[in-house]
């Protein structure tokens, strides 16, 4: 028996043996072992079979695979038991076996290292947002540039007061849970202060009962701050209906009847934005729109004189209200964007440099952004 195996091993040694390596599958919940192997090119092989041996000596063939495969994940194992693997290169009747792999044991991990890039990104961005919110709460000055849209708002209100015509302010169709609605109500306060000074009519039709009550308080407060509490007319701020298209039709009727000099559409909008903007445009009024509803922006941009695009609406309300929560998260997001830009620029530069053989190790940067 010994001679035969000696003879076989001599014969086999001319052909290099397939090499095999088994390890506990990383970053997983256990019960899984990953096996990798290389089959030497000169070895005649039709297909591969993978054998598993347990401590008790029991041997089972767990997989037969086509030639091209270079790995297999064995998920039929239980944690805590030890296993050995070997790969057989089958061609015709005989099989060339690889060395037996070392003993390996599967176990669950407590941290998924493949997601460490997400953890870093999370911690960095959290630090930014919290830092700026605390900064704002402590009352320290946080610079936010004046949005060009605010000049357009001022101009439009000035035009209405000169012509002595009313202003229609639509705070959007969203609820108080929408950030855009809150931003719109902040800007409404600012517009109301101006109409209070020049005593021109400010009409605010609402679609959401809660937004209606908040809007009325905002305007009343603004008139008081402008020193004209008497000029405040409560019934200029009114609830119309909660049905989307009925609301749009009612506001259209209002714009055609009152012939306002300026229309404001600031807040959350859906498909009815088209109906509002079109009728407003045909009455010849100056129209200022602003929404984070990306789908409606194309219509507002072409139908209105000025449009606050997405986050510009938030920036405008943060600029006006100086409210710490708004300012803090706006600044945090600003620096988050800056960080992304720096990563993209520096990352690209290094990756392009990796074309130079000496610096080719930079190529691994791209894999840092893999997600699994």
């Amino acid at each position, binding site marked *: 028996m010994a001679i035969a195996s000696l003879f076989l091993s001599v014969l086999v040694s001319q052909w290099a043996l397939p090499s095999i390596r088994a390890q506990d599958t990383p970053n997983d919940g256990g019960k899984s072992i990953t096996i990798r192997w290389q089959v030497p090119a000169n070895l005649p092989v039709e297909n591969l079979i993978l054998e598993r041996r347990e401590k008790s000596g029991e041997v089972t063939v767990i997989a037969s695979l086509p030639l091209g495969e270079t790995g297999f994940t064995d998920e039929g194992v239980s944690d805590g038991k030890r296993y050995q693997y070997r790969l057989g290169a089958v061609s015709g009747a005989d099989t060339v076996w690889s060395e037996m792999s070392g003993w390996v044991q599967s176990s669950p991990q407590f941290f998924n290292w493949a997601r460490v890039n997400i953890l870093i990104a999370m911690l960095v961005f959290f630090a930014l947002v919290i830092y700026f919110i605390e900064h704002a709460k402590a009352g320290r000055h946080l610079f936010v540039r004046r949005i060009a849209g605010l000049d357009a708002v001022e101009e439009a209100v000035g035009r209405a007061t000169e012509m002595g015509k009313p202003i229609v302010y639509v705070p959007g169709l969203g609820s108080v849970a929408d950030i855009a609605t809150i931003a719109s109500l902040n800007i409404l306060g600012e517009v109301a202060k101006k109409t209070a000074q020049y005593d021109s009519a400010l009409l605010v039709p609402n679609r959401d009962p809660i937004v209606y009550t908040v809007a009325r308080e905002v305007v009343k407060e603004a008139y008081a701050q402008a020193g004209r509490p008497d000029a405040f007319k409560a019934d200029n701020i009114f609830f119309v209906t909660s049905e989307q298209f009925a609301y749009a039709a009612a506001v259209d009727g209002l714009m055609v009847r009152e012939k306002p000099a300026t229309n404001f559409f600031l807040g959350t909008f859906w498909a009815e934005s088209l109906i509002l903007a079109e009728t407003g445009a045909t009455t010849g009024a100056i129209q200022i729109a602003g929404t984070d509803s*990306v*789908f409606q922006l194309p219509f507002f941009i072409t139908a209105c004189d000025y449009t606050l695009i997405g986050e510009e609406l938030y920036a405008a309300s943060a600029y006006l209200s100086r409210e710490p929560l708004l300012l803090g998260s706006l600044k945090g997001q600003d620096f988050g964007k800056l960080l992304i830009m720096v990563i993209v620029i520096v990352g690209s530069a290094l990756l392009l440099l990796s074309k130079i053989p000496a610096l080719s190790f930079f190529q691994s940067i791209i894999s840092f952004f893999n*997600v*699994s």
Partner: protein
Amino acid sequence: MNLLENLLRIDRKIIFIVMAVLVLFPLLKPLGLGVSSGPRAKAVFDAVDAIPPGKTLLISVDFDPASMPELYPMLVALMRHCFARNVKVLLCGLWITGAGLADKAITEIPPEYGKTYGEDVVYLGWKAGVDAVILGMGENIKNVFPVDYYGHPLDSLPMMREVTRLKDIPFMVAISAGTPGFSDWLLYAQSRYGMRVGAGVTAVSAADAYPYLQSGQLTGLLAGMKGAAEYEVLVQKNGYSKAYMPAVAAMDSQSLAHIVIMVLVIIGNLAFFATRRKRR
């Protein structure tokens, strides 16, 4: 120049009538303008074509009656493509209004290819809780859908024996009219379970899908009725179906409607600039 001025004051209802006539006419008398094909629809077709017979294509039916004209033909064309190649089809849904539409497809399409429910096609039904549903299906479909839409326990369906979780499914197409939709399948199914995702979307959100195509997250895109028509043509050209193609038939009206919109915008702007120059 008062011609342009009263051009501007045309009553809205006249434009409505012009629109209605131009859309209705080609439906009655097809003009046969045909459909130009693009790379994005071909990418979805090739991915479905690559699914080996016996394996399963997952389709998430996340749309409603309003978006049926654009998205329902996609569902039908995808099912015909699979059945013609003996690929099994598994339907599920994140939209409550998708339930009735998936059921309509299940009753109409499988009989065309002699496919039986439970062996070649299963509809799991609709479930609330978007991320919970997708992540639950990743671990074990039975956790989320103990019974299918028709009340059969999953174990009683032969097809569901070898499809227990998302990893057993080589490719999926999320047909979505908004949120929840394909972005949720990317957010939860792809990032956690490595699911290969194609998308069929209404034209409104088609342009927003391009960042996901470029980053390789999305494998192909069917964009609106044109995407549906392109897929119908691909399925027919490859001999997988000879059935009537509703999306292709409607593309004539689309073409006319597009031309009308462009002409209206041009005239509107000419009149606008003419009167503005006069007023200055």
